[in-house]
């Protein structure tokens, strides 16, 4: 590859980070939202009209989110080549298999979202409900496949690098299944999959908490909140365990990433758990150290050594401050969400049979409103931890990011355009969803007619065409 400037490389990394950071939130909805819809839709078919109303509204919200997710996901597949041709030309066939399988999952999801959205009042109710199942399955498979590629970048396997006499490297012995089922895949997949359910659960719950704070205390709001919060709670409780296993795995396979996460400058027995802290000129400042706990968490006992950053030359170390702090944000929020979930269910149980109700407590609702955005922050921080923690490698120990980036100039331009377009998309998505919710409240109608033309008669507010497309 042709050498590229540092600024060029930064632009490419920024563009990838922005596109992924945007898409990761929408992809969570693609993975977990069908399950939430399934829960309320199934309840609705058993006679709960509020639940059926929620299912209908949520399916329309899904129509918007999935559309934006489909296009932002496509951008990523472009960017794999546009920004990182050095990765794709060398390793495209090594990691291509999970990508191809993900393609099938994407097909299935896109087909069934079409059938589900347009199936209201057209398909027999039970068949219609079941069209959500392939979407849920595609969410599992799709997450596994995409994360498999990322896990492979962290823990590459399934190929051999051979250096010939003239110094050029060649890739042989490609075993796509070994690459796909690499060491990191199961922990990374389960961590991300559960994160998706947490994000969607807490965000949807936050929407209804916000509504209840504004005094909308109808049963649909309470139901919407409880279903979403229940799903999120299960995720929140399981997640620390998965995270812990992932951390122990890191100690073996990516010790330098773990060192950066723990801000461990040197290899230590009895390594302390560092809370807060910043690395300045090689010394850790402003950290609260709890001796031995890092050793205990990562290695299973107090006196076992936790590797430090000094195991590799400075040029091979990730920016520890970013990794450490994003990791701490993720763990901090995750812990808070566990406590918050436990508190809710414990109080709910205690309140049973009394007239006390947590969903009328403004303090609780405010916290629930906050939990939605916090879950998204935790998602983004966790993703930052794993991506920045791999630096300077795009494929850990094998290929550097700077050797994979495109030789083309002008990435700052494409990055700027991407930033503007995505900022616009995020704003419009938010506004469209808000406007839909307001019109549902005002008109009590499910179908929102599209104003294709001006009002038909005398400028009244009448809907231009009474017979409208569904959804």
């Amino acid at each position, binding site marked *: *590859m*042709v050498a590229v400037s540092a600024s060029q490389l930064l632009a490419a990394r920024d563009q990838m980070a922005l596109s992924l950071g945007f898409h990761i939130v929408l992809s969570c909805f693609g993975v977990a939202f069908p399950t939430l819809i399934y829960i309320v839709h199934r309840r609705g078919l058993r006679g709960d009209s509020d639940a059926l*109303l929620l299912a209908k509204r949520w399916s329309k919200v899904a*129509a*918007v989110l*999935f*559309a934006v997710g*489909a*296009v*932002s996901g496509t*951008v990523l*597949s*472009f960017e794999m*080549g*546009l920004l990182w*041709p050095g990765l*794709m*030309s*060398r*390793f495209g*066939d*090594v990691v*291509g*298999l999970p*990508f*191809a*399988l993900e*393609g*099938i999952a*994407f*097909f*299935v999801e*896109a*087909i069934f979202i*079409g*059938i589900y959205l*347009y199936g*209201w*009042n*057209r398909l027999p109710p039970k068949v219609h409900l079941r069209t959500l199942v392939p979407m849920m399955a595609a969410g599992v498979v799709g997450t596994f496949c995409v994360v498999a590629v990322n896990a492979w970048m962290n823990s590459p396997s399934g190929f051999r690098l051979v250096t010939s006499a003239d110094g050029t490297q060649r890739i042989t012995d490609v*075993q*796509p299944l070994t690459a796909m089922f690499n060491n990191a895949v199961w922990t990374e997949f389960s961590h991300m999959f559960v994160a998706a359910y947490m994000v969607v659960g807490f965000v949807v719950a936050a929407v209804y908490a916000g509504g209840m704070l504004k005094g909308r205390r109808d049963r649909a709001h309470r139901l919407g909140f409880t279903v979403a919060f229940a799903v999120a709670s299960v995720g929140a409780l399981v997640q620390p365990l998965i995270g812990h296993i992932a951390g122990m795995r890191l100690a073996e396979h990516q010790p330098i990433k773990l060192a950066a996460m723990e801000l461990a400058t040197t290899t230590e027995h009895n390594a302390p758990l560092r809370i807060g802290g910043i690395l300045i000129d090689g010394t850790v400042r402003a950290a609260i150290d709890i001796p031995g706990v890092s050793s205990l968490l990562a290695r299973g006992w107090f006196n076992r050594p936790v590797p430090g950053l000094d195991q590799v030359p400075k040029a091979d170390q990730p920016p520890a401050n970013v990794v450490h702090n994003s990791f701490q944000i993720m763990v901090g929020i995750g812990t808070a969400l566990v406590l918050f979930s436990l508190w809710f269910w414990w109080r709910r149980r205690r309140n049973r049979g009394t007239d006390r109700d947590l969903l009328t407590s403004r303090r609780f609702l405010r916290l629930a409103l906050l939990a939605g955005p916090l879950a998204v922050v935790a998602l983004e921080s966790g993703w930052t931890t794993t991506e920045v923690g791999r630096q300077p490698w795009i494929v850990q120990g094998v290929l550097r990011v700077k050797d994979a980036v495109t*030789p*083309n100039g002008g990435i700052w331009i*494409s990055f700027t*355009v991407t930033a503007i*377009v995505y900022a616009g*998309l995020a704003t*419009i998505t938010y506004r469209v969803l808000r406007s839909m919710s307001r019109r549902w409240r005002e008109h009590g*109608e*499910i*179908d929102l007619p*599209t104003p*294709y*033309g001006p009002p038909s008669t005398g400028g009244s507010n009448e809907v231009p*065409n009474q*017979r*409208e*497309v569904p*959804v």
Partner: protein
Amino acid sequence: MSLAALCAALMFFGVVAYAIFAGADFGSGVWDLLAGDAASGGARRRQIDRSIGPVWEANHVWLIYVLVFMWTALPRAFAAMITTLFVPWLFVGLGIVLRGSGFAFRKFAETLSQARFYGAAFAASSLITPFFLGMIAGAIASGRVELLDGRHPDLLTSWTGPTSWVGGVLAVLTCSFLAATFLAADSHRAGDRDMANYFGRRALVSGLLSGAVAMIAIAPIESDADTLAGGLQGKAAPFVAISAVAGLFALWRLRARRYARARVGAVIAVAAVVIGWGVAQYPDILVDHAEISDVAGARSTLYGLLIVFAIAAVTAVPAMAWLFLLVNRRDWADDAPRAPSAG
């Protein structure tokens, strides 16, 4: 046929599917752009919405399929293609984002002015995207993409040759032809004869234009793209002939207002011309610069791709068939049925 060629063929199968199905969706956007002002175009835009609403996301995935198959089966060709044609790919990416989101936003727009804004984004990018995809095809077919091997590709001249312009214009015209035929058949099935005839007339015009441009294009392709021209006159000639016959059949049926039959002709015409392009440049993947076998990925991965394709054949394909069966049913062609209790 070698294993690599088989995988390339499976990839190209995606190109053909994308050209037909997503092509019809793109073309619908073009007709949305030309549907007239809000007063006269409302009903037409509603028909476009009905026609492509349930299927556009599924049809769009063919592009992902093609990209993934290409970088997995032919990684170096993929890197060369996307790095050299960096600029048109950026436009395609931008177009896809604005198009999909614009379409989804319009459906839930609150006011007419918002609907027009989102609709304009959807419609304009429906024109831009196939145009640049056609330019990309023209660039590859005229031998302007070579393997990178450490050199800097020319970011401008690689995709602005005569064949690229031909490719871009033809892509837009054939997409419009396909779409108008589909829309005519859909409106006819929904019982709206006036609408069917409106799109039928446009199908006829865009079909004639596509044919005319294809004939005129022979000259620039002959002088600009030797290999392609040779292939089209040689081993791919049968496909060119099939395309011409099917196109004429479609025009003949359009005149008789037999839209369902015309649609079959239009699909065959477009599929045949795309297949003809593939056959004409075979065994090259990057015309004049790289054969499929030069850039093929590891054999184990190629076998894996065959298995992936088999999995797709038993999962995604039946699902897609069901979707198409549903949208072609009369009760799906019409407006939303309203269940009494549905609110």
